[in-house]
């Protein structure tokens, strides 16, 4: 329909041109350039056709935000994302908890993984009972928050990362790009007025967060730790991406947990020097040579890593030679469950604690506390630093 309108106006402009060029009279009519300008103005006013997919998509996000806007302030939770149902449920619960806690804020959730965003949307199959979950990427949410007709007065971005590492740095960069109007498509006046806040990851602070999380985890699992080892599996940053030395939080958490019991361990999937093999070495050094090993994801949600790397059936065990670690000391293609089982411990489906941290209300509360702290704290200066610590 818009195209027809556009075409028609174009045609009108052409006819006008023809008429005026055929009249040589030195008359009082407005100039042809003036009319063309007016026509174009008219078209632009009535038919705001997005010039690219980028703009078209942004408009969809903006429209979605507009339809949901109830307050002047917004909280945007940012996670990597997952396509597991358990993860969807955990995010739903987290959103509800945030809404209950921050009653005068609109709460939204953002994925930073494009693949997870695409699959979670699944819009076309809504009729089949698929849930449409629009976990847009952070830049689109932020731009929508700044769009005409939305313009939240306060925006709080809450990182749902566990450690202040690489993913968290990306979150900061999104905010910085937004605050600096990097793409030049936002209203500078609005940007100078909006209050931007950033809620830090779960284990941001070694002095406060690490002991707080350790305390809550011990409250939850102290009985389990009496029965055997509770091995938490974090993600960790690959060595070359150990941004701000964030990996050390896992080690600090283990130390804080071991204040309660020597049965607590914290290993990772990607942190150099802290793979499951290293967890085993520390267990053995503490004299734990057998018994039960419970495994628990130390991630905001229990998705691919929790179900595959921790509790999957992958096992590279060789009957003759056992496991062979790679040069980094990790045994590849083997889940934690199979690894500890082969190493002589009681480790099986019954000792897998399939819970993401967002599913644990007391741990979720630590994130919520961070959001409170951000709201109560000073607005951060995104203009000058990529790391507003």
């Amino acid at each position, binding site marked *: 329909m818009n195209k027809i309108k556009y075409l028609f106006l174009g045609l009108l402009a052409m006819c006008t041109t023809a008429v005026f060029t055929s009249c040589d009279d030195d008359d009082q009519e407005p100039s042809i350039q003036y009319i063309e300008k007016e026509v174009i103005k008219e078209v632009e006013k009535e038919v705001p056709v997005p010039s690219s*997919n*980028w*703009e078209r998509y942004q408009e969809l996000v903006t429209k979605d935000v507009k339809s949901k806007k109830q307050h002047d302030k917004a909280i945007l939770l940012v996670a990597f994302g997952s396509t597991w149902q358990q993860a969807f449920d955990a995010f739903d619960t987290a959103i509800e908890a945030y809404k209950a806690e921050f009653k005068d804020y609109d709460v939204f959730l953002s994925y930073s993984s494009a693949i997870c965003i695409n699959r979670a949307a699944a819009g076309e199959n809504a009729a089949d009972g698929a849930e449409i979950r629009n976990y847009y990427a952070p830049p689109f949410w932020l731009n929508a928050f700044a769009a005409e007709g939305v313009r939240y007065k306060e925006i709080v971005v809450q990182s749902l990362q566990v450690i202040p590492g690489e993913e968290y740095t990306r979150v900061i960069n999104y905010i910085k790009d937004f605050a600096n109007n990097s793409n030049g498509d936002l209203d500078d006046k609005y940007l100078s007025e909006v209050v931007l806040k950033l809620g830090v990851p779960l284990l941001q602070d070694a002095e406060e967060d690490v002991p707080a999380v350790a305390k809550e985890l011990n409250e939850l699992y102290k009985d389990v730790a009496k029965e055997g080892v509770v091995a938490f599996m974090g993600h960790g940053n690959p060595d070359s991406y150990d941004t701000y030395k964030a990996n050390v939080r896992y080690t600090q958490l283990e130390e804080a947990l071991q204040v309660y019991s020597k049965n607590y361990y914290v290993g990772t999937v990607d942190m150099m020097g802290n793979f499951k093999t290293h967890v085993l070495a520390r267990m053995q050094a503490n004299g734990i040579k057998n018994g039960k090993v419970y495994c628990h994801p130390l991630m905001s949600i229990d998705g691919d890593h929790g179900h595959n790397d921790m509790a999957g059936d992958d096992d590279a065990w060789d009957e003759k030679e056992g496991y062979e670690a790679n040069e980094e000391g990790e045994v590849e293609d083997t889940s934690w469950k199979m690894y500890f089982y082969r190493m002589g411990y009681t480790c099986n489906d019954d000792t897998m604690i399939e819970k993401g941290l967002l599913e644990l209300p007391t741990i979720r509360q630590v994130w919520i506390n961070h959001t409170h702290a951000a709201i109560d704290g000073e607005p951060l200066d995104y203009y000058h630093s990529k790391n507003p610590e």
Partner: protein
Amino acid sequence: MKYKWITALAGLLFSLHASAQVVNEMQDSIPEIVVTGTGTQHLLKDAPVQTEVISGRILKNYSAKSLQDLLMGLTSSLDFNEDDMGSQMQMNGLGNSYILILIDGKRIHGDVGGQNDLGLIDPHNIDRIEIVKGASSALYGSDAIAGVINIITKKHDEGLLAENSTRVGSHGDIRQHNGIGIRLGKVSSYTNFQLQHTDGWQNTATEDPHQTEFLITDSRNKTVNRYTNWQISERLTYEPVKNLELYAEGSTYWKRIYRPSGKYAAVDVKTYDMEYHNRSLSAGGTWKLDGTDFISLDVDWNKHAYYYYFTAITLTDGYDPQGNFTPYYPYFPDDMELQSDQQRTMANLKGVFELSEHHRLNTGAEWRYDYLEAPMRVVGGEAKDHTSALYVQDEISYRLSDKVAANVTAGLRLNHNDQFGNCLTPKVSGMLSLGDDIRLRATWSQGFKTPTPKELQYRYVRYMNGTYLYLGNTELNPQTSNYYSLGGEYNRKGLNITVTGYLNDVDHMITLVTIPNSKAPAEYIAKYDPVKTRQYQNLESAKTKGVDVSVRYRINREWMAGLSYSYLDTDAKQYDTTHEKLVDVIIDGTAHHKGSWFATWNRSFSSKYQMGAGLYGRMSSKRYYQINGNGKGYQIWRLSTNHELTAKKMTYRIEAGVDNIFDYVDRTYHGLHLGTTTPGRTIYATLTIKFAQGKKLKFKSNNKYNSNSNDNEQD
């Protein structure tokens, strides 16, 4: 139950046989000529290189819906496991990327992940298929490691030809073929249209519970997806003077694979279909000299473009309005994004000269330029490759005594590639003829396959119950092979038996290998958080060894039966980066025992009516895979019947049949390997109407080949 079926069918065939009025019919008695093994013409039984032929007659009886259908049903050394990415063809254990497919001697163009698009070939337009197993790189260059499949298309020489063939079958299967041929003096034109469509099918709606969060019994993932493809091609030939034929041809092809989307984000949600656009142009000519001597020149250009056709809003890698890289470039339904555009320009000059009674020289030069555009799949967005080659081959024939003759074919190819410099590839085949009945053949040949631009420069992310990152490897070496075979052939009174043992020793095979995430560029790990990262690497070695046996018996003019069997064993050693040592691995998809068999009956009841029927079977033992389970063994039977009515210039032909008579379906959970993707029992019917006016030019036989045609496969 099964035996009752067979008995009933056999009874039906025999009763038809007994009650029919016997009419002596003059069948064509054209000796089967093959060209693929040496690049020169030979009678099948005298071909110095063992060649398996699927003749026009067998093709006609089988009524295949596709090239895949007929290769699967009529040869035991080929297998398929059709999926999203292609047909997953294997020849004697080696995959499609080691099999060279030729159409009239020219290599087919365009692949996705090494899988050629077999839809480019109109099954109705195939005259015969020649299969030469083992390395043939001396003659054909890269890729000819497992073997060569040469599709010889029909040549239409009628004055005027109009043909329509429509085949319909279960699961919305539609095959359409239309051909119009005109010959006006020295110029002839043939226009071909083909369409292939299936609605696809789903053998199970249950996902493998070990790979999913909870039991899913209503998955939308199909076993074989719905697809449609069509192609128009045109060939013009011109004979300005006697012995010189010039041609120009072109084609355009379109294909879409439709992927259903379900409701489980981790399992069956899809946000795009796949679309392929293929175009080709070629021109050339053949100048026939004395006897069998000729010089030919062919120049051709091919383009195979692969797109995502989005069905839902999809964010993917791209560039934002400021030109910066973003993982969030949005596409909307009906948008398309180019994944890869492979373009190839080739020129081939070839000459065959009979130097003396004992020597026949086949020599030529090849120039090839490859260009790959893959904006988001190749580092830098594009890659180029240049290859030139010279080859020479001598066929040396001597008669050692009255009954014993020897033939040695020796060939050598010098290849020059931009990236890998020069390499020499030899081939030597020998044949000993003991009387008319027995032929003994031996071959040693080398094969090679240069890494594709994709394998060198790849960067791709796939989501399948977790993110998988695939990476190219610029350190790759060309893959090379040594092939040894020894075989015997016995021909007498319609009986043909061949037995061939072989060893194919492939070095530096390239395959995707799981590497530790720490070995991958850290920026990709941070960006995609892959469950596994796989990179192309050279396998240290892979040996396939086996025996192929084929028996064919033409009992009389009406009955013919055949059996082929392949035994295969593989011994692959792969470098395991986790353990930094060679480990024994299975070549995915291989089975120890495979067989196929057939019995056909054809009879002419009058000069206007003939009918035929065929019973076919094929089997495979368990197919082995490294992960996600082995494929179950299977046995599948097929019945095909045909009726042909001829009235003056018109021919009407009806074909109907039942495939997979006993309704075998492998319902292994989705996500695990299947032995076969057959949907179970299917029925089909084909109606072909053909109008032909003017003299059909028969095969221009050369006296040299007519000397010994009595017992050969006839067409």
